[in-house]
C-alpha cells in the first residue's frame, strides 16, 4: 500500500441483510486512489460499484451494513471516525456527484444557496462571500452569467445544466477527492459529451482525484488513468486503463469488451455474454463468473481466485492466463 494514496480501501465488506439471505454486495474489495488521478470503476448493476463508494461515505442504506474493512482517507479511517467528524469530510474533503440530476437537487432551494450550502455548513463564512464563491465555481463549470442565475430554482435548468450545478457544488469546497456515480447516464448523448468535456477540464484545472463510477467502458477509456472492473461484489481486474483495454486479463473484462459495438466498423457485431450475474445471496464457492466464463476449468469451481499480478500494476482474479489462449471452453 503506497503511503501517498488519497483514499485507500482495504478488505471492505458491505453486506445487505435481507429476508432472503445475506447479499454480499461488496465482498473483500481493496482499492486505492492516488492524488490527482482518475480511477474508473466499471461494472454492471449489482456489481457493487456504487455500494463500495457509498460505504466510503458511510451512506449505505439499511439493511446494508459495512461489516469489516478499512477506509483510509487522508490518513484517517473513515469507518472508525465519529459520525460528527465524518460529516466534516463529506462534501468538504470528498465531493459527490450522483446519477440523476433531476432528483439530486432540492426543487425548493435556489441554485445559489444549494451550491453555497457546503461552504456555509463547513466554513465560517458569510452568506455573501459563499455566494461569491458559488458564482466563481458555477462559471468554471460552464454556467454562463452565473451571477444572475443564483436566484433561480432548479426547474429552470435543463438536465445537463443541473448536472453542472451538482458538479459545482461538489467542487466548491476544493475537495481532494470527487466521487462521481454514473454522472452522465441520465443525460442525452450530446449533453453527455458536454459533461465529459467538463470533467476533462476539471482534471486539468483542479488537482482533485476523481473516482468515476460507470457502466460505460467508452467513458472509462476516455477519462480514467486506472480502471477497476467489478463483478458480483469483487474487483476482478485492476490495471492502467490503456493496459486494461489492450490486454484484458480477466475473462469478464474480455467478454465485456466484446459486447460493445464499435460504430464505424463495416461489419459491426457483438458477442453477448450468456447468462446472468449470480445471485448475491448465494454466491458459488468458486469463481462467481464460472457459469458464464469461456475459459473455465475444474479448479474455478472449487477455489475462488485471488487477485493475481499479471505484470506491473496489472491484477486480475483468474486462474487462467487468457492471453495465452489457454483452455477456452470448446465442446
Amino acid at each position, binding site marked *: 500500500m503506497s503511503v501517498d494514496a488519497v483514499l485507500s480501501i482495504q478488505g471492505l465488506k458491505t453486506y445487505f441483510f435481507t429476508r432472503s439471505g445475506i447479499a454480499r454486495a461488496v465482498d473483500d474489495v481493496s482499492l486505492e486512489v492516488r492524488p490527482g488521478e482518475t480511477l474508473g470503476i466499471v461494472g454492471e448493476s449489482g456489481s457493487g460499484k456504487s455500494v463500495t463508494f457509498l460505504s466510503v461515505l458511510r451512506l449505505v442504506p439499511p439493511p446494508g451494513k459495512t461489516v469489516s474493512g478499512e477506509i483510509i482517507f487522508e490518513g484517517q479511517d473513515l469507518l472508525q471516525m465519529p459520525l460528527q467528524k465524518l460529516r466534516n469530510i463529506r462534501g468538504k474533503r470528498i465531493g459527490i456527484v450522483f446519477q440523476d440530476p433531476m432528483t439530486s437537487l432540492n426543487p425548493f432551494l435556489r441554485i445559489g444557496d444549494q451550491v453555497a450550502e457546503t461552504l456555509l455548513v463547513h466554513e465560517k463564512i458569510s452568506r455573501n462571500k459563499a455566494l461569491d464563491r458559488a458564482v466563481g465555481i458555477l462559471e468554471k463549470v460552464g454556467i454562463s452569467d452565473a451571477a444572475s442565475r443564483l436566484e433561480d430554482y432548479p426547474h429552470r435548468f435543463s438536465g445537463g445544466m443541473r448536472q453542472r450545478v451538482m458538479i459545482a457544488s461538489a467542487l466548491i469546497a476544493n475537495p481532494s477527492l470527487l466521487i462521481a456515480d454514473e454522472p452522465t447516464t441520465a443525460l442525452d448523448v450530446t449533453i453527455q*459529451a458536454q459533461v465529459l468535456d467538463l470533467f476533462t477540464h476539471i482534471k486539468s484545472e483542479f488537482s482533485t482525484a476523481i473516482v468515476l463510477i460507470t457502466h460505460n467502458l467508452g467513458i472509462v477509456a476516455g477519462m480514467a488513468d486506472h480502471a477497476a472492473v467489478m463483478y458480483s461484489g469483487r474487483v476482478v481486474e485492476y490495471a492502467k486503463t490503456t493496459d486494461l483495454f489492450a490486454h484484458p486479463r480477466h475473462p469478464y473484462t474480455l467478454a465485456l469488451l466484446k459486447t460493445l459495438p464499435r460504430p464505424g466498423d*463495416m461489419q*459491426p457485431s457483438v458477442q453477448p455474454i450468456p447468462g446472468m450475474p449470480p445471485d448475491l445471496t448465494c454466491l458459488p464457492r468458486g469463481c462467481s463468473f464460472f457459469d458464464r466464463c469461456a475459459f473455465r476449468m475444474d479448479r474455478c469451481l472449487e477455489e475462488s481466485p485471488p487477485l493475481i499480478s499479471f505484470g506491473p500494476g496489472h491484477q486480475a482474479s483468474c486462474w487462467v492466463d487468457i492471453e495465452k489462449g489457454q483452455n477456452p471452453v470448446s465442446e
Partner: protein
Amino acid sequence: MMHSTSPLLEVNNLRVYFPYHGKKSAGSQREVRAVDNLSFSLQQGETLGLVGESGCGKSTLARAIVRLFRPHSGEILFRGRDLAVMEGEPLRQVRSELQMVFQDPYSSLNPRMTVRDIVAEPLRNFGRTEGLVVRVRELLGTVGLDASAMNRYPHEFSGGQRQRIGIARALALNPAVVVADEPASALDVSVQAQIVTLLKELQATLRLSFLFISHDLSLVSLLSHRVAVMYLGEIVETGPATAIFSNPWHPYSEALISAIPIPDPEKERLKTRIVLRGDVPSPLSKPPGCPFHPRCPYVFDRCRIEHPALKAYGSERWVSCHLLDEPNRSPRPASAHLPTASL
C-alpha cells in the same frame, strides 16, 4: 418514396401535435410538435434505425405508427392502406401485423398475469387458440426462454428475461412489422448485447421489417440497414447505416457520432469530440429556419431564415442541410465529402 419496389410501410408528411395547456410565452406555438412533417419508408425485411435524443419525437413516432396516437395529419400506408384514418375493428385487424416491443421491461408486462397469459393474449384476441400452449412454448423457445417460464409471473424474471417475454408477445401473431422502442436501453451492457443479438437473428430468420428506435447510435449501427437521424420531430439525415457512420453529412449526425465514447483509450483520447452548445430546444418553441441552427457549429445566415428541405443526394442518401448546397462554404463538417445534388 426512395425505392422502386413499393415499400411495406410508408409514412408521408406525418404530423403528431399535442395541444399545450400550460403558460404561453412569446414565440411559442399552441401545440407541441412532437412529429413534424416527417416521411420515410420501410421495405420488406429491412431494419430502419431511428436515432435521436430525448424529446426528438422518436417514441411518439413509434406510437403513432402502431396507432396508439392519432396523427394530426399525414399518411401511414401499410400495404397500401392508410392506417392514419382507420378506426375500430379494421384497425384492430391491421394491428395484428404491426407489433411493438417496449422500452421498459418492468412496466410493459402486466404484473398480475402469468407469462403464458401474456404471450397468449394476442393469439386469443385474434381467435388463434388452436394449439395455443404449443405455440406459446415455441415462442418462448424462439426468444431463448425455457418452457418452465410459462406458469411464472413477470416479477420472477430479470430485466433481460422480461424483455425476451415482451419480444415473444410481439412475435406471437407473426407480424410483418415490429416497432422496437429503445428495447435495450433499460438493460445492463452484457444483457443489452444479448437482446440486440436476439433481435438481429429474429429479423434475419423471420424476415421481419424492423423499426428500431434508440438514442444509442452504436446499438443502431449493429442492427440497421438504414438509419434515419431525428431532430426536433424531423428527419435530418437518412441513408445506409455504414455510410452515415463513416461519413455523416448533416452536422447533427456528425456531432452525435463523435459524441459516442469509444471503448478504446487510444482512439478515444485522440479523436476530436464535437461538443454542441446548449440543449435541445423544446418542441413547443421550434426555432425558425433550420431547427438545428442554434446549436450548429457551421451555422450561416440562410439557416436562420430558411428551413432546409430533406433532399436526395445520390440514390440512397437524404439530408436536410443548406451547407450541402454551398460546396464552397467553409467551415463545414470535417468528414463531409460532399456530393453534388442529384435533383
